[in-house]
């Protein structure tokens, strides 16, 4: 067993860290909070040029044949700078599904330009009544002569406000809560009948509220087999969860380090506040939680590529729960130990806090993952 990074991985991490430090410090994100899109296309195409968007795709799909763990290492570094470009939505979710299920033509039309940084993608799956249950889907795709007509509504679609192409979940058969009958389609952003509302979010980013009213697509826009998409959706959302853990790890680590630095610097009662034993214990616990986050995140990133579905679910749920609980411990105490300035918008810590809270709410929260974990067959076997 070896937890060390390979030489290539170390080079990758260093180059992303350098980018964040020099070109994308938190300041850049702050400016983007006031922009329409919430991020910069220029930055996106640079990420394409640097090869980050294609790291985890097979070479025959225009990628570099790396692993999900490589992508997680990138996301972790981006998390330290609150980099707002839509890596998770575009690369992990929609990109992942296109690579897994797409025909050669579909990959050429939708995946290649994204990997090159020329377009961005979104994955529209969540519905109002769905909470975290992926089979919940009232959006329907009816068969038409030339293909399908899609009608329904998708909420909190990451990058849904800005993506060029959207992978959407729609029901081709069955009732709203059925596991069977789900299909995936690729829809253009400018398709007739598609209304997109830009929705600013707590973390200063944006997402989309998408309404489909008889949006017609050709049969060539069906992604994968008709009616059996649920397992693939679960796969994609699990990788989304693993990605959230990776990005979240960067934010947790950053908050933790900033807090320790502040404990050494801030003085009250004529001494650094870090000399108070109560705060030393707090910092020690934050350290422990940060390391638990990092360890479970690594395992989740490795398991994201596992064909064994139960193993994948187990480890990714474990990491997501740790981000929700242990990550929460770090973030609430970071704000607490900064005192009054911790709750000002001027200070960056609050921005990390908000981003982390959003990542905790995405792809299943801690409760949902604990519940899923105890439903897995392995849980009941006593070994």
């Amino acid at each position, binding site marked *: 067993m070896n937890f060390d990074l390979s030489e290539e991985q170390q080079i990758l991490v260093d180059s992303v860290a350098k980018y964040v430090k020099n070109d994308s410090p938190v300041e850049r994100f702050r400016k983007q909070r006031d922009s329409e899109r919430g991020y910069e296309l220029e930055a996106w195409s640079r990420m394409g040029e640097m090869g980050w968007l294609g790291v985890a795709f097979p070479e025959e799909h225009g990628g570099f044949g790396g692993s999900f763990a490589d992508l997680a290492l990138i996301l972790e570094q981006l998390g330290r700078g609150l980099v707002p470009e839509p890596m998770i939505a575009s690369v992990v979710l929609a990109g992942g599904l296109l690579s897994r299920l797409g025909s050669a033509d579909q990959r050429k039309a939708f995946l290649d330009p994204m990997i090159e940084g020329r377009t961005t993608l979104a994955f529209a799956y969540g519905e109002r009544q769905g*909470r975290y249950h992926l089979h919940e889907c009232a959006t329907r795709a009816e068969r038409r002569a030339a293909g399908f007509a899609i009608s329904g509504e998708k909420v909190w679609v990451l990058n849904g406000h800005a993506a060029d192409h959207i992978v959407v979940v729609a029901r081709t058969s069955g009732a709203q*809560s059925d596991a069977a009958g789900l299909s995936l389609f690729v829809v253009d952003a400018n398709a007739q009948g598609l209304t997109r509302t830009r929705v600013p979010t707590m973390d200063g980013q944006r997402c989309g509220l998408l309404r489909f009213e008889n949006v017609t697509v050709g049969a060539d826009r069906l992604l994968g087999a008709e009616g059996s998409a649920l397992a693939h959706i679960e796969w994609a959302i699990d990788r989304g969860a693993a990605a959230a853990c990776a990005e979240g790890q960067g934010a947790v680590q950053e908050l933790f380090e900033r807090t320790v630095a502040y404990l050494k610097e801030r003085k009250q009662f*004529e001494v650094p506040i870090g000399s108070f034993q109560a705060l030393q214990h707090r910092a020690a616990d934050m350290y422990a939680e940060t390391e638990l986050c990092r360890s479970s995140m690594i395992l989740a990133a490795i398991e994201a590529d596992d064909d064994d579905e139960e193993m994948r679910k187990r480890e990714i749920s474990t990491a997501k729960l740790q981000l929700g609980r242990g990550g929460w411990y770090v973030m609430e105490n970071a704000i*607490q130990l900064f005192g009054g300035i911790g*709750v000002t918008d*001027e200070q960056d810590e609050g921005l990390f806090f908000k981003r982390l*809270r959003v990542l905790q*709410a995405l792809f299943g929260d801690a409760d949902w993952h604990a519940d899923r974990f105890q439903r897995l067959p392995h849980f009941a076997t006593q070994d």
Partner: protein
Amino acid sequence: MDLSYTPEQIAFRSEVRAWIEAAMPLHLKRKAEGPGHYEQAEVMEWHKILYAKGWIAPHWPQDVGGTGWNIAQRHIFGEELVRANAPQLSPFGLGMVGPLLIQYGNDAQKKRFLPKILSGEEVWCQGYSEPNAGSDLASLQLHADKDGDDYILNGQKTWTTNAQYAHWIFVLARTNAGGKKQEGITFILADVRNTPGITVKPFLTTGGTDAFSETWFQNARVPQSNRVGPENGGWTMAKALLGHERTLIGGIAESRRWLRLCKRIAAATAVGSSSLLEDVEFRRRIARLEMRLRSLEMVQLRTLAAAQLGRAPGPESSILKLVGTDVEQEITELCMDGMGHDALGWLDSPPEALPEVERGVASLFNYLRAASIYGGSNEIQRNIIAKQILRLPTA
């Protein structure tokens, strides 16, 4: 020991409830449906309605404007305000400087300030903290130097809640630089709006609202007649006031509000064809918090009952602050968990994306991180409990 209500008290509750129902304007009632985030103007509107009824300061002695109610009536009144989710009044005048003036102010000061605190004509803010004097409040640097009949104030206060709306500020100022730092502090009242040299710069909080400000004093001239109590005698009063503040800012009444909000959110959150309020696991999470809150309410009642027997709030008020803010934060966290993906929403998310009952919840959740920081952080409360109640030895 008897904790049951008498028939008179039950009748009193109905009277209060009926009055609030009739007196609360429709636009406020509409806001009461959600987290109850009221603008300053709305808070003052409600303040004036209570004032006109004579119910603005139930905790003040009757001869200076109180209602003459006993502790049970006051408690019932408080519960009914929470039930209606009525605007929360600003504590700085009614809850802090008012009682302080009643106890330590001279007649001229009482006559000058108390009536306008009651009527809401004058809004107050609290100038204690400074950039380098937070937990270590006694190290404050803003200084007041005598000049004829005046003090000249120089320095900076920070995190001054509501300073941007305030007419008056009560300030802790250094009047003696030598000796023990607690012994050189004086309690001074300053007119924020009409004193040249006082400037207020609001901060944006992580809640997205500008709840507090930096307050600067540059050669600000204030008459010495605005000093409360003796010169260099401010620390005792400041501490008395903080003890008082801690009985108020545990957020116990607010927690009741957020708890009801949490249930409303859960009821409105669909999960398939059911609702989150039907989810046993989530119901248990709410139940645990509600039960903890119930215990805390009893601690508060005991403190209030002791106060009615003339005992000043002692260090045990730290418990109310410590546990109260913890519960308050946990309930808003639970609201956020209940919202699921809607927890992504923010104040500027469009209404079609974020239901009205959930608007402002994320802002509240972020802002309330401050509850364990303000009014003496929860670490400081634990220090007080360890030292003053438990008398544990120091290292």
